[in-house]
């Protein structure tokens, strides 16, 4: 290991703090569950939100990792190690899927076809049971994770070998994997979005839904990487590496992704609003009611307008310490977006009060402790930049090229 780029020693302290906060989250989660009437149901509901949130950041890191290999741009080199560490948490997420598999019956409506009294709905679910049945569901998720883990391990192996040998052919090989790999990744993510989230309402469908979650993952991952870079930029050795130019690039990427998210989300709304069909629009009607209506407005403002306007500023993008506030706003909004997508399905048209959703914060923070613990363990174990990459001098130059 090249000691010039060794991780700062107090990353271990940050890891400890993350684990501690996670532990507090788990305690709050347990207390919340015991106070709630229906422990089993609420546990699995809040678990699913936390799982989709953290799996999203892990997958976003994997996607960005392949994109930076494909682009061959030097901005990607600076964040390659954080992205690798983020995608390595997919191993953790694969293990954390097991409770979802156990709780399928408490999460998905299509598990209880027999007990549904509505004839039409039951006929429709019977028709869809070829796809929506527990065995096939678990097999599919296993396939998704196999695809993601394979890509993650292949890229990781090449990157670590590059540290030892500095052989440029390894980058070429990573690039060759990333092209078809990204295609496989996007297909697996689309199907995962359909299975894990969209099938909560087995009647409803939207063809853009997979893309919506993929872009959401990208937004969350870049916002997360910006936060990590700001932490690193305050410490040796990365304070000599991360320049305003690098934050400028990351800020531009965040701006672009926020816009794509808004574009996809709005496209779905516009089409369903215009069609106003009985099999499509109820999904939105449920989400315009009560608390969800307010959270929806919060999403329009906080997930698009505010970050969009702030990120237009060049000075803000170049200042990591200010950029990080936008990144945190966006991460919080990602969480609210997932709440808005998932939780109304558990309520059957009776939205709760804001305090009913605190348990989802507890579960997400609780799982976040584990996730961040895994992430920082990975980040600490290797040099913070791929120091043998032939493009490194160019990436480190004050200009920080493209």
């Amino acid at each position, binding site marked *: 290991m090249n000691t010039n780029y060794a991780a700062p020693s107090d990353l271990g302290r940050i890891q400890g703090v993350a684990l501690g906060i996670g532990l507090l989250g788990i305690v709050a989660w347990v207390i919340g569950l015991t106070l709630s009437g229906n422990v089993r149901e609420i546990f699995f509901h809040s678990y699913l939100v936390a799982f989709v949130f953290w799996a999203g950041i892990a997958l976003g890191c994997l996607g960005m990792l392949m994109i930076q290999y494909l682009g061959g741009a030097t901005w990607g080199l600076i964040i390659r190690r954080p992205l690798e560490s983020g995608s390595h948490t997919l191993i953790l997420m694969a293990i954390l899927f097991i409770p979802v598999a156990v709780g399928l019956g408490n999460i998905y409506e299509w598990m209880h076809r027999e007990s549904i009294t509505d004839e039409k709905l039951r006929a429709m679910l019977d028709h869809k049971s070829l796809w929506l049945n527990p065995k096939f569901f678990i097999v599919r998720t296993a396939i998704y994770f196999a695809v993601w883990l394979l890509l993650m391990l292949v890229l990781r192996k090449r990157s670590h070998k590059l540290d030892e040998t500095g052989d440029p052919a390894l980058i070429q090989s990573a690039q060759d994997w990333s092209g078809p790999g990204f295609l496989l990744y996007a297909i697996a993510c689309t199907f995962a979005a359909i299975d894990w989230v969209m099938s909560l309402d087995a009647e409803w469908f939207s063809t853009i839904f997979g893309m919506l979650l993929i872009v959401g993952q990208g937004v969350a991952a870049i916002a997360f990487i910006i936060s990590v870079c700001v932490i690193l930029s305050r410490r040796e050795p990365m304070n000599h590496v991360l320049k305003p130019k690098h934050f400028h690039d990351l800020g531009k990427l965040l701006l672009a992704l926020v816009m794509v998210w808004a574009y996809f989300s709005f496209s779905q709304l*516009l089409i369903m609003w215009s069609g106003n069909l009985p099999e499509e629009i109820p999904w939105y009607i449920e989400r315009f009611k009560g608390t969800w209506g307010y959270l929806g407005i919060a999403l329009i403002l906080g997930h698009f307008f505010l970050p969009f306007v702030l990120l*237009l500023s060049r000075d803000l993008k170049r200042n990591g310490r200010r950029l990080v506030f936008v990144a945190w706003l966006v991460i919080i909004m990602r969480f609210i977006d997932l709440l808005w997508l998932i939780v109304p399905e558990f309520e059957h048209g009776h939205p709760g009060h804001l305090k009913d959703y605190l348990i989802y914060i507890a579960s997400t923070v609780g799982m976040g402790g584990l996730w961040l613990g895994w992430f920082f363990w990975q980040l600490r174990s290797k040099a913070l930049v791929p120091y043998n990459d032939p493009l490194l001098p160019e990436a480190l130059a004050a200009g920080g090229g493209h």
Partner: protein
Amino acid sequence: MTTQEETGIYGLMAEFDTPSSAVAAARQTYDAGYRRINAYSPYPIEELAEAIGFHKNMVPLTVFICGILGAIGGISLQIWTSAIDYPLNVGGRPLISLPSFIPITFECTVLLASFGAFLGMLIMNGLPKPYHPVFNVPTFDRASIDRFFVCVKADDPKFNEDETRAFLTRLGAREVSHVEK
């Protein structure tokens, strides 16, 4: 102004072979206290603009204000046409059917913002300009091919033809030309 009119000089133009030498020279000229500097390159070089202390201008603000005006204009037009002047019930949706109004609002924002960018840029650059002294330099055509130029204008308070010429030559210019007014 009088001294300039007498000598008929616009400034001194230093010619460089590579972008990096032009950026370095521009930076040193700025550091030496010159402020009325201009630089010319065949393609945009962000560092060059930074080196001569040119990155703040009013074009982004113009674009932003025009964009907001476009958004307000677009949405007002639709509200007026389909909810006030000729109320139109489309399949029982509210008269002010916001989701359907967004695309037009967006297009109007883009349209006005691009007008703001295009016209704002022209006006603030003082374009169109049929005559500009820098084209009196014989080799200046190559500023759009393969050469990089740094020009110190005569109206700079620090400008002194001999000293400035010597200074620019020291910076490694392949040629320093007198720019006729």
